[in-house]
């Protein structure tokens, strides 16, 4: 039990360190002009950070399929909404 909780705490600190490092990286990259690639890199790093928070801090890693469904379906809907709106406004 106590060994398990020590492992859990260690995981949290590792995830925390990764989040901080990724934040520093994304800010530093923003000072370099990569053109359109800046957007791609920034969103990619943000998504990795978001995944870390969801998987470890929100314990999604140890949740069952039902919770995964509740977490992912709204994101799929959001993607659909953004895509649909974009298609509409760009082709108008």
């Amino acid at each position: 039990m106590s060994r398990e909780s020590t492992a859990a705490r260690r995981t949290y600190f590792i995830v925390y360190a990764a989040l901080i490092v990724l934040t520093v990286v994304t800010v530093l990259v923003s000072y370099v002009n990569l053109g359109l690639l800046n957007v791609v890199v920034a969103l990619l790093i943000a998504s990795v950070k978001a995944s870390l928070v969801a998987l470890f801090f929100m314990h999604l890693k140890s949740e069952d399929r039902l919770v995964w469904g509740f977490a992912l379906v709204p994101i799929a809907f959001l993607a659909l909404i953004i895509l649909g709106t974009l298609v509409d406004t760009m082709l108008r």
Partner: protein
Amino acid sequence: MSAPPSGHGDPRVAFETAKLGLWTFLATEVLLFGALFTAYTVFRVKYPALFQSEHLKLNRVLGTLNTVVLITSSLTVALGVEAIRRGKARLLEKYYGVTVLLGAVFLCVKYIEWTEEFHHGLYPGTNIFFSLYFMMTGLHGIHVLLGMGVLSYVIVLSRRGRLSEAWYTPAELSGLYWHFVDLVWIYLLPLLYLIG
């Protein structure tokens, strides 16, 4: 005579159900912020030059500082939940107390940023970039404020001896909510401050 296993009254099932309820709430939150993210995307595609020039007027250093503050507060919440899982109520209260404090720091920094922007004549009505900036950070700020209230309430519950390793549902749920608020900011930093 034993009743068929319906799951009602089983504390384990009750805990899973409560978590599912909160994830459902978070789904509605995704769509609430989603409307603004959609508007952002549409106008970002329509006026790339405006977003490029306007986003440089934001304070990138304070934005980054606030990101570190929020990520740290996510860690303290995670550690708080982990503490109450071991029945350590006092430790939970400490971690959640630090989290509320970090939330306050976040809002203070945000206040400084907004004040700075008002001084430079940048208002929600200045242009579409600043409309989105103030709406998105404002809505997020309200969430931080509400989160601070909920976490404070959990601290009060814990002080009254209501939470234990056998039942810590409020701590778990408020923690999930706080992490979500952190998640939103993780996207706001690059979209508003870094790539505009």
